[in-house]
């Protein structure tokens, strides 16, 4: 079947299998391999992207369900050479070790901060990132980075 999706601002018409996942479309059809597949069982959150403005696990959305939607991936958040404030904060706070979970962490963190009316505290950030796992267990600096970034978003 054919689906039409807007990915990082560009309209795309993609031929996909009926059982394709959004993560398959992004990585295999569009070559956007910044979206990582960690567990493929909906647990780790490495594949998190924004679909119509909300963080979702792209390994747990059928491509057909995303038809007509707007997707933002980790490749789409910087403004040219200028990193997104969340990316800047992750770098400044050494919020990544192996880096595998980082794209998903950043996409979740951006949605978490953007959808909160009040500044978040550390406990709320930890709770808000429940759907993302860092197997290096580098949570402490990830939380610091998110707290740091929210002042600049």
């Amino acid at each position: 079947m054919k689906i039409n999706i807007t990915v990082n601002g560009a309209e795309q018409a993609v031929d996909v299998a009926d059982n394709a996942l959004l993560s398959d479309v992004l990585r295999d059809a569009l070559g956007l391999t910044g979206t990582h597949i960690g567990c493929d069982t909906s647990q780790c959150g490495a594949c998190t992207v924004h679909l119509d403005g909300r963080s979702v696990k792209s390994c747990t959305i059928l491509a057909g369900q995303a038809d007509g939607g707007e997707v933002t991936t980790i490749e789409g958040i910087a403004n040219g050479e200028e990193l997104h404030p969340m990316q800047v904060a992750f770098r400044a706070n050494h919020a990544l070790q192996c880096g595998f979970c980082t794209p998903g962490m950043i996409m979740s963190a951006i949605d978490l901060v953007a959808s909160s009316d009040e500044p978040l505290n550390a406990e709320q950030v930890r709770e808000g990132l429940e759907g993302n796992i860092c197997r290096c267990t580098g949570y402490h600096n990830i939380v610091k980075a998110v707290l740091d970034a929210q002042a600049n978003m």
Partner: protein
Amino acid sequence: MHRFNFRQASSIAEAHSTHAASDDAVYIAGGMTLIPSLKLRLASPNDVVDLSRIDGLSTISSAGGVLSVGATARHCDVAQTTDIPALASLASRIGDAQVRNCGTIGGSLANNDPAADYPAAVVGLGATVHTNSRAIAGDEFFVDLFETALEDGEIITRVDFSIPSRAAYAKFANPASRFAIVGVMVAETSSGVRVGVTGAGACAFRMSSFEAALSSNMSASALDGIAVDSSEFNDDLHASAQYRANLVTVMAKRAVAQLTA
């Protein structure tokens, strides 16, 4: 993943007829349970019929003391409602943020996972589940493990919650999945005190002994000494049946404490 035909439905009638024309079809809403099940081949349908684009099916409205939640309303949307704070709080604690951004109330209820949160609300608040063909009382909806009163092909359209005078939901969550090991909704409704329990048994149920005690004395101490029969309770690596029985009392007391605070 298992191969199937993806069928987009634009109306309830189209979804129903597509399902009826298939020899093996399932509906998908948020897909938070179905897609992992497809990957694990726990489900292997020929056709997957998508309900998530049906106009009006996700509408949330409130009128005449009833909060009406459309079947494809997502947990994140219900979490933003204000009419029944206990229901919003329950929705805000399902799974994680990404799951709440996709998962729907109708999907959760139709799936009837024994550890899902919403069944405690449907039973505890005495909700009515509306489908494309009828209205089903919350007390009649959950039949057994992953089994509901829904007929083959029947589609939940909305869930009506009568707004209680006060209510609270307490759960002991699995630390990894955030599913309820035990969750208890306590509510003071126009038809009396209701206590709905999820996670403990094969499906959600009411605790009539707790309801009777709380009707005469809405305080945590009113539950002291009331035996909880664990003979039919779930017993697994997360918690023994006896432990769950203890949790039923503890969670009910916490809910009562919140409700009376």
